[in-house]
């Protein structure tokens, strides 16, 4: 088994190094790559579609932090301790089982011009019935974040529920007896005690939103005219659609640096869990 593991390591690390090398060449996938120094990085940072993509990815990160994390916490908090809580959570869990592509197909159907959303708005005499949801930036990015949130809230709610379950009852009871309730109880007791779960949810949300690909590629292919691309889509388009392998590799490296930087804080936490309580959690399963 040892040699197998070494092979896997080679299969991961040689490509990482090779991608670094490619980013310094003018590779187009066919001809022998020629060394061009940091030219690809210069091209990348002066390429308007890359800058738009960078901005969109930032919108994805912020949007994914506000909506799925916020509503996920709301669902977890509202349903926690309720009778039939499991049944009330089902609507939020169903979307989690769907793939990014299936969600893209469904939301394309809802958001296309004259689609289900436009019809509902027209029926209710609300404004927006003639909006071209997927054709105008940054509106298309925002509605795709909503589509992705529709899927992501269930997972976050589950993670917050695990966190709520692990909060000790005594301090909460003591606070209640002292007269704290509702908003006060939440902000001064529950929110601080939930911090381990919040760290995991926020960390996962940031890392996953940085890598956004499936929904955008399925719904708009990054278009029209590359206005809704994310870094993941830009890397794919530059490399495999425009055959600019060197430029694509540079985008991949930029994406990797950002993702790894974002991961550091949250991974520290995860490795810590692995050393102590994490193993206990798996044992219960």
């Amino acid at each position: 088994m040892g040699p197998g593991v070494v092979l896997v390591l080679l299969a991961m690390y040689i490509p990482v190094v090779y991608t670094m090398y490619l980013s310094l060449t003018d590779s187009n996938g066919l001809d022998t790559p020629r060394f061009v120094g940091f030219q690809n990085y210069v091209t990348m940072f002066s390429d308007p579609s890359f800058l738009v993509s960078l901005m969109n990815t930032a919108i994805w990160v912020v949007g994914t932090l506000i909506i799925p994390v916020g509503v996920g916490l709301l669902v977890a908090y509202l349903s926690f301790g309720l009778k039939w809580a499991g049944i009330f959570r089902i609507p939020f869990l169903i979307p989690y089982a769907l793939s990014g592509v299936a969600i893209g197909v469904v939301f394309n159907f809802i958001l296309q011009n004259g689609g289900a959303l436009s019809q509902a708005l027209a029926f209710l005499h609300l404004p927006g019935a003639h909006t071209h949801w997927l054709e105008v930036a940054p509106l298309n990015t925002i509605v795709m974040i909503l589509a992705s949130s529709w899927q992501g809230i269930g997972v976050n709610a589950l993670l917050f529920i695990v966190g709520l379950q692990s909060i000790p009852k005594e301090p909460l009871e003591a606070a209640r007896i002292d007269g704290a309730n509702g908003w006060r109880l939440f902000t001064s007791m529950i929110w601080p005690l939930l911090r381990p779960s919040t760290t995991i949810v926020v960390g996962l949300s940031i890392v996953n939103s940085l890598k956004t690909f499936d929904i955008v590629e399925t719904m708009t292919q990054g278009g029209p005219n590359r206005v809704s691309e994310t870094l993941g889509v830009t890397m794919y388009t530059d490399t495999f659609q425009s055959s600019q392998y060197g430029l694509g590799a540079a985008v991949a490296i930029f994406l990797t640096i950002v993702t790894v930087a974002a991961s550091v804080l949250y991974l520290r936490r995860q490795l810590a869990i692995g050393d102590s309580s994490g193993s206990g959690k798996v044992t219960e399963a």
Partner: protein
Amino acid sequence: MISRVARYVVLGILGLLWLLPIYLLLANASKSNAEFSGSQLWTTGNLGAFWGNVVDVFTTTNVPGGLGVSAVYAVVAPVIAVILGACVGFAVIVLKLKHGFTWFFLVFCGTVFPIQMMVIPWFSFSANTGLYDTIVGMIIIYSIVALPFSAFVMRNFFTGISESVFEAAVVDGANVWRIFTRIYLPMSTSALVVVFILQATWVWNDFLLSLILTQTSARPVMPLLNALQSTEGGGPGYTVTLTAALLVSIPTAALFLFTQKFFQKGLALGQY
């Protein structure tokens, strides 16, 4: 008391809102192309038309072949990754491999890199070796991608097993292989199942890798589903496409609903 009622009401309204896209999916997957009119998207469909669409998916699109291919990937690659991952965890924690943490850290870093960082060389390599668009090639790639996470979980799991288990087995004269297969693997069934379920779901739902590394014969179901949306050359129409989206979601949805508890345990482990 009132706050309890308010919680039910808010959750209920939010839940109904969340079910609307599912309703639209079901309603329009059960309309025939003839009945389907662009202005009646919110009306209900009927079972007969749904069955007609299912038949259309199976007779007029390439989705059924993709379902078979996806099933092979989603079963074989996670099994390989889980077993290799258990080996890594066992070697690092139980056998106290020299520089074990370094090895583990190297494997673990694989969960941090985005796939974009490795996919160009994988594409070139598979094209040069004839592994491009082959089932074997894709199984190898999926196993590699799934290994780091499975090694991570199995290592954490083995840290929770007392050292005396290993020592007792050695005293009883069992060799390392026997200890691994007869004692440690059976003890960790639950962790192995969690990892398998998470990785099988991930492989089934993968879009990026399959889009880049396959074209026809080894293409799993997600890129095929995406291609149904294309209107160039006359796609199959929205009712059939939505039916296909529903069909490809059934395996993961069923797996998720039946193993929800496992999922909840696995979620805390990250990645998903």
